[in-house]
């Protein structure tokens, strides 16, 4: 029997089962409740699974991730940020389920939407629309870097790092969180341009550094990507060098 009760210390509900039951999978408990038609119980469990066991720990891990890039940047210099993200995210470009494995922008959007849902976007935070030449994903707020900005992670005591000056790997802008630069370096930037001639997607980081939103654009054909997106990453658009992603 699952015991979901409020913890005054944590300020939310948590499983207060007997110790011997704490290792029973919440996924399995939810599945059982659905199979048995215990709808209210299932509803309680899904709320807990999403907020308590899901988003809480996702966000802690996401901050940890940002902390490690910040440790490297603070300790060994800002130039290390680009180097570290290139190594850590190589599999996102060249791995077996990398978005570069399909020439279809539409298929990339489906996979990317799943990634954002896995980052625990809340209701109404992720909007996707099709335009004539592209698909636009609007994250408001972005549940990773945007959440960090919104929750003060770039301020004391966390002090997660941000660019002190413009770099090609920060869309030629200063004050971009080092965490957020992985988008400029990996999916929306340098690595795919160097390998395929164009980015998997392009990104419109907000003008206001306090704005936690972000816009991600998948062009239906790489030739439609405006030249400006290449320039701010330090590259020239050269369609003669484009290779099909697959």
């Amino acid at each position, binding site marked *: 029997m699952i015991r979901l009760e409020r913890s005054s210390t944590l300020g939310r509900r948590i499983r207060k089962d007997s110790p011997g039951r704490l290792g029973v*999978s919440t996924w*399995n408990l939810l599945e059982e409740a659905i199979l048995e038609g215990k709808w209210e119980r299932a509803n309680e469990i899904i709320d807990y699974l999403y907020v308590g066991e899901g988003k809480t720990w996702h966000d802690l891990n996401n901050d940890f991730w940002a902390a490690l890039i910040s440790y490297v940047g603070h300790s060994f210099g800002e130039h290390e940020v680009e180097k570290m993200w290139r190594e850590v995210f190589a599999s996102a470009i060249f791995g077996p389920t990398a978005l570069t494995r399909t020439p279809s922008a539409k298929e990339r959007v489906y996979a990317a939407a799943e990634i954002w849902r896995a980052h625990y976007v809340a209701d109404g935070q992720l909007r996707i629309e099709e335009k004539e030449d592209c698909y636009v994903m609007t994250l408001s707020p972005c549940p990773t870097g945007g959440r960090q900005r919104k929750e003060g992670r770039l301020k004391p005591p966390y002090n997660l790092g941000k660019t002190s000056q413009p770099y090609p790997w920060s869309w030629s802008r200063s004050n971009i969180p080092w965490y957020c630069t992985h988008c400029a370096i990996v999916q929306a930037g340098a690595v795919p341009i160097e390998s395929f001639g164009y980015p998997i997607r392009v990104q419109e980081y907000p003008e206001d550094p306090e704005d936690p939103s972000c816009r991600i654009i998948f062009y239906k054909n790489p030739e439609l990507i405006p030249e400006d997106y290449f320039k701010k990453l330090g590259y020239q658009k050269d369609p003669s060098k484009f290779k099909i992603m697959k």
Partner: protein
Amino acid sequence: MYKLEYSELLGRHVRKDDWKDLGVPTWRLIKQALSDRKRNQGLELLDNLFREHGCLDVVDRLNKCLSYIARNHGEEEVAKALRWWQATLQKAGDVVSSLNLEELIQYQAEELRFSFTGSGGRGSFNVAEEKDRYVFSLDPCQVGRMRRIKKINPSFELDTTKEPHLWTWGKADVPYYCARCCIWWEIMPIEEKGYPLRVHEYPDDPEKPCLTIYYKEAEGIPEDYFTRVGLNKKVSKIRGKRSDKGS
């Protein structure tokens, strides 16, 4: 309305809803299915939510970050990075050190369930209550699963320590991410409160479970768990009963 269809890219089913629906969180769709008493839809979406939950490879990337630090700046920097972040979380008011034993177990069990522990990665593990302690048997834990994959497929990327360190229980060939358990839950609490919040029996053989152990009384924690991380057990320094709140 959701549409689960096969994705050539991912090699499995993925939501291919109409654009206006694609950003709706899957848990919201499950709640709707529950409200409509649609059992099969609820189960199908639950299965999809579980796959979504696993698509980020978070621990794999965290281990890669720590590996980068070790490779480029030396293994001791891994320990420094981990210490820095845990100290930062404490300054920011992290609740862990203010939890009594019961709450601590409930809270950390939550993370283990989140982290794909156990058979099928569904977040399950065995808990045995003994006279003086609770023993969580993680078979495997998330990194343990990666160690098992690497045993079968040596080309699987999982960097491990080259040297034995006190912060890896005096062992070499420990994944960098595992140092987090040693530093955050053993070394730093001993330094701060006089005893580890929990101790670990890291298995040399990845086929065996990793044991996470909570002693009911801090005084009862065997001295070996202090000395193996280069610290001494000083009963006079142990602050507060484990059943007490705060420190």
